[in-house]
């Protein structure tokens, strides 16, 4: 196994632990981006409150923060603590989010965009946080001001050293301080804009965590704020060196390096890491197959593919071929991640069609509907015994070695690639006695929406529906992911047992009324 697979397996193990405690829907590790947004909003709202009482002049800034912290500890004081701790939490979840997208290889190919935009986000987060520590004008602020200014002065851009503004009372620049206050408000606003660009290519982006997770996180931060309030470190005094300071290690971890290495060396380090990070999606580039392709002869312009595509790769445009429909689908190759979810959504992707050639309105050229149907039929033909199971396994499922004399495996990029009509066809034409869908872990579909759309299609909540005549107890979903081999083997064996007791499919057979589409496995 390559190193990334090992790390990925370890990550999924940790996440399974969180699944056990929180359930897949509330697992915080699946919601890191959404938590980032949530912490951002806490910082914004608490910051707005603090601004009401904050004095933006350098003479009174410190006293105004002291007033908030001590006189008004129950309101402004709590807000101050929330402002600091939510900023720290933002750094933590964003760094985890970044590492996670990297380990799961969700940053290359057409997914370069959010990653690339993420790089300036890091700079903006740090600029916001560092300027925040500056405006308190306590001893830490004094240290941060001089060290930051010295670091900026290492670049041969500024005529007069900026550090000079913070060296002595007689040269202290109130105007520069007020500029910092302005920066501390402007940079977070720019951050918000870039965060919005970051998720602009995701449809239904998870920018709000589930309510229970939001309430839990906010409550935990409030408890921290009350138990351990954020305080200042004594007023800045330019006649004295703030020799020992309490650092915020989330925002200021590089500052100790300023005392050991030259400013230019650190610029080189930080610039190099930034550049590497920004270019990572192309180091090496992902080898990709062709993007989804529209076959106009079979496209009726219904727009379902556009509604289901998780990456806004499809737009409906004016009809070009004179067919009696007003619109047609059009794919932006640069955004398409080759998940095939659009094919699963297309009403013309039906294996029943009498045409000699089976072509859907939108298809992945490397896995056409025709080859998927033929592959299914060929795979089950090799099976023996009277209980035949076909497993459709997505690329992230651990379906290796699942095949045996009565179980066949067909690979698809995502379970969302499967049109419900194909499952209908497989079962009611008695190619197989049961269909097992093996996907990512619930709550963390590699293509974001594949599991959700599949469940809704099977449950008759989203077009295209699985027809009522298909017995639901013959379809079983296992959302166990890359590390879920044991679960998958166990579930497949149990499913086969259940099928055996059902016997073979008889037309008109009905499962228990309203039975859910398969069982979800939450491990």
């Amino acid at each position, binding site marked *: 196994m390559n190193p990334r697979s090992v790390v990925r397996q370890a990550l999924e193990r940790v996440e399974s632990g969180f699944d*056990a405690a929180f*359930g897949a829907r509330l697992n915080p590790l699946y919601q890191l981006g959404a938590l980032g947004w949530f912490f951002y909003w806490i910082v914004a709202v608490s910051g707005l409150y603090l601004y009401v009482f904050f004095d933006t002049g350098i003479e009174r800034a410190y006293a105004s923060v002291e007033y908030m912290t001590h006189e008004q500890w129950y309101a402004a004081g709590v807000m101050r603590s929330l402002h600091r701790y939510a900023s720290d939490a933002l750094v933590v979840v964003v760094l985890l989010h970044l590492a996670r997208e990297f380990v799961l290889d969700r940053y290359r190919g057409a997914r370069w965009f959010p990653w690339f935009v993420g790089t300036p986000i890091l700079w903006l987060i740090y600029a916001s946080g560092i300027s925040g520590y500056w405006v308190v004008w306590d001893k830490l602020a004094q240290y941060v001001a001089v060290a930051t200014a010295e670091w900026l002065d290492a670049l041969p851009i500024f*005529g007069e050293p900026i550090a000079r503004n913070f060296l002595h009372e007689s*040269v202290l620049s109130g105007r520069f301080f007020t500029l910092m206050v302005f920066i501390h408000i402007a940079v977070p606003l720019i951050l918000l804009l870039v965060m919005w660009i970051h998720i602009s290519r995701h449809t239904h982006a998870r920018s709000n965590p589930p309510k229970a997770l939001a309430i839990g996180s906010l409550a935990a931060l409030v408890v921290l704020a009350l138990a351990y309030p*954020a305080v200042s470190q004594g007023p800045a005094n330019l006649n*004295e*060196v703030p020799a020992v300071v309490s650092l915020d290690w989330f925002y200021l971890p590089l500052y100790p390096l300023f005392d050991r290495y030259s400013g230019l060396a650190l610029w080189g380090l930080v610039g190099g890491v930034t550049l590497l990070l920004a270019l990572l999606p192309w180091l090496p580039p992902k080898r990709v197959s062709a993007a989804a392709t529209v076959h106009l002869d079979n496209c009726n312009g219904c727009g379902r593919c556009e509604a289901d595509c998780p990456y806004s790769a499809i737009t409906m445009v004016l009809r070009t071929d004179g067919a009696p429909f007003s619109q047609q689908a059009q794919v932006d190759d640069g955004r398409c991640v080759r998940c095939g979810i659009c094919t699963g959504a297309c009403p013309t992707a039906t294996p029943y069609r009498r045409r000699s050639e089976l072509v859907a309105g939108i298809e992945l050229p490397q896995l056409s509907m025709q080859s998927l149907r033929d592959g299914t039929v060929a795979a089950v033909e090799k099976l023996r015994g009277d209980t035949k199971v076909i497993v459709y396994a997505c690329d992230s499922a651990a379906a290796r070695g699942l095949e045996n004399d009565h179980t066949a495996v067909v690979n698809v990029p995502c379970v969302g690639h499967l049109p419900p009509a194909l499952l209908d066809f497989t079962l009611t034409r008695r190619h197989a006695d049961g269909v097992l869908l093996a996907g990512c872990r619930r709550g963390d579909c590699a293509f974001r929406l594949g599991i959700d759309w599949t469940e809704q299609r099977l449950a008759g909540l989203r077009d295209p529906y699985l027809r009522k005549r298909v017995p639901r107890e013959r379809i079983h979903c296992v959302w166990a992911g890359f590390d879920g081999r044991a679960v998958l083997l166990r579930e497949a064996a149990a499913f086969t047992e259940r099928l055996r007791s059902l016997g073979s499919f008889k037309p008109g057979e009905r499962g228990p009324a309203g039975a859910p589409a398969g069982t979800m496995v939450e491990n």
Partner: protein
Amino acid sequence: MLRILRGSAQALAYAAFVAFIGYFSASPSYTHTDPDKALIRLSFSHAGAPVRPCRRLTQEELAQLAPNMRKPMDCPRERLALLVEVTLDGQLLHRGSLPPSGLRGDGSSTAYERFTVDAGRHSLGVRMRDTPRESGFDHQREWQIDLKPRQSVMIDFRSETGGFKLL
């Protein structure tokens, strides 16, 4: 039972998260200068003399210039680099040549240095050459100081107010 177990596991996860954040948001503390020492900074901006004195142009030279460019004096814009030395108790602490800023070398030179020194009594000296002379200095000062631990002083230079000052 399972609900209680899950609830406790969640509470534990939240607690661990905020404990981690609370701790590293202000600890461990960092000592960036020895608290028993004092700090001397040298910081100023000052333009050195022009690299050569101004020169009166000859009639022939003037005639060669375009009519709107004819000025009787030719003054170079480039400045000399400054030479600065700082001494502490007679020992040389720092010696540096400060080039002028600007692409044409016509701006001020800027000094910025920091020295961590023992607290206590010292004689602190500073001198600078800003003219084309070969030896010696144009500005110098010496102070007797008694530095407390963590005290921070700054050597400034303002030509308008008579040269070096200790702030």
